[in-house]
């Protein structure tokens, strides 16, 4: 077992390094992820795209350490997750921020309490007043009107919940921000707003890495510096948006023609 030190970030250009990742849920008969090799560069917006059922969400859960791989390794900021015990994994996760598909807000807490929650857990040296100030700043950054700060998540619209979820993800100033299908279930106008929010958030957090899991190809081209396409549990192509447009792969051409038409 390797000695992992989640506090130390090696000075490489890779935020997430996945090596030969395989995942099977039925004892090796069928692999959802079948040898994924992937490097996600630091400081850019990377979009992981693919058809439904290609293993995007399973890959995200491996990046977050919520699932253990059948084989292969996942390195986050130079630290191998498989070499970490629970305490190290918990510490590592404080360097990540996640916006879940449906925001996953705690429904018994107000908007403000949701954003304060990670601070309360990990920034115990702060006074409540300071935590509230940070929360207000983060909520303002994602464009949420202060009149909603003391509402419960059930009183908010889908778009507002996503904003609160993003503010909560940003509360600890993470080095990597992950977005799980951030525009699913939103109308085209709100989709564009969320896409802009991702770009703005990325710019506002200098040096941070953003990873967006999506099936929305149009959005991927709008916001990403780097795109990874998954197919049949593996990486079909990883590169800059231009490389996708130039690709001669039939599947990519099909995906592009359908995806960009819809966009």
């Amino acid at each position, binding site marked *: 077992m390797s000695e992992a030190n989640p506090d130390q970030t090696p000075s490489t250009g890779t935020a997430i390094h996945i090596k030969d990742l395989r995942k099977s849920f039925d004892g090796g008969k069928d692999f959802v992820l079948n040898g994924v090799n992937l490097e996600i560069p630091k400081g850019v917006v990377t979009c992981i795209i693919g058809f439904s059922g290609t293993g995007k969400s399973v890959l995200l859960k491996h990046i977050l350490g*919520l699932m253990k791989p059948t084989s292969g390794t996942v390195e986050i900021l130079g630290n191998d997750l498989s070499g970490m015990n629970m305490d190290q994994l*918990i510490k590592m996760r404080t360097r990540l921020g*996640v916006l879940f598909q*449906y925001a996953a807000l*705690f429904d018994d807490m107000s908007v403000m309490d949701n954003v304060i929650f990670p601070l309360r857990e*990990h920034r115990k040296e702060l006074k409540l007043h300071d935590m509230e100030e940070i929360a207000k700043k983060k909520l303002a950054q994602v464009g949420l009107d202060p009149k909603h700060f003391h509402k419960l998540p059930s009183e908010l619209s889908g778009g507002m919940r996503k904003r609160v979820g993003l503010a909560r993800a940003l509360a600890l100033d993470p080095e990597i921000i992950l977005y799980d299908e951030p525009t699913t279930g939103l109308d085209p106008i709100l989709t564009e707003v969320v896409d802009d929010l991702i770009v703005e958030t990325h710019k506002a957090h200098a040096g941070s890495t953003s990873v967006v899991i999506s099936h929305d190809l149009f959005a991927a081209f709008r916001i990403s510096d780097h795109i990874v396409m998954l197919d049949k549990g593996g990486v079909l192509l990883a590169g800059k948006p231009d490389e996708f447009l130039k690709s001669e792969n039939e599947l990519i051409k099909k995906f592009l023609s359908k995806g960009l038409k819809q966009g």
Partner: protein
Amino acid sequence: MIRVWTDNRERINTAIDDFAGRIFNGLGKFFVDCGKACIFFAQSVVLIFKGPFRWDEIIRHMEFIGNRSVLIIAMTSVFTGMALSYQIFLGFVKVNATNLVGPTVGMGILRELGPVLTGLMVAARAGGAMAARLGTMRVSEQIDALEVMGIDSKQYLVAPRILAAVITVPMLCAIFDFMAMMGSHFLTITVLRQDEAIFWDKISLWLNPGDVYQGLFKAAVFGVCFATICSNRGFNASGGAKGVGEATNQGVVNSMVLIIVLNFFLTNFIRFFYVAMGWR
């Protein structure tokens, strides 16, 4: 008969195989589930002692399990005490032993009915809510959100619930015991016109603090039992609203069955322990 057997041998064999297969599968699943619940419990206990102690969460769950159950416990206990007293009175009247109604009811309530009925009522009310709450948190990714925020979800969600149940259910059991004896007193003295002095005298003669303690001990065990099972079911729920419903249902049913089964073994264990210690 032989002809029927030979004509349908294939079908009968298949039916027997199916039946046996279902029993073995069911038993296998039962033992696997028990094993998973035990591992879940062991992990939660470790997390209780590992800390950090989340006092605000523990008190919040104590309020939910305890305070909000007081009314139903009080209602159930008074009527149980009265019904039990009446039945015992009707039986004892035949052998002219009505002066023993008090201690007999007391023994039944303190040792058995108090902890068991408290456990069942709280499992149905708080256990069901526990499984539903955790199940909803699981399917709406709130538990995943906790994990990725760097918070041990079991330590935050499960450990305080188990600790709160261990502390609160014996308190509810004590309320049950007291209210049931008040119900018994009301029926025996006020309605059935028995002598109050004899009622209390026989109780003080026949019962001792050990009867109360064993009931409270059982209640604490039942608290652990339903909190662990319901939390485990909810925590591992999957499949949307249907999954949450199933988790809640299974959590409550399994807790209730286990409380009743466990009560028998606990009774024997406590009896053995008391005899071994020379207390009775």
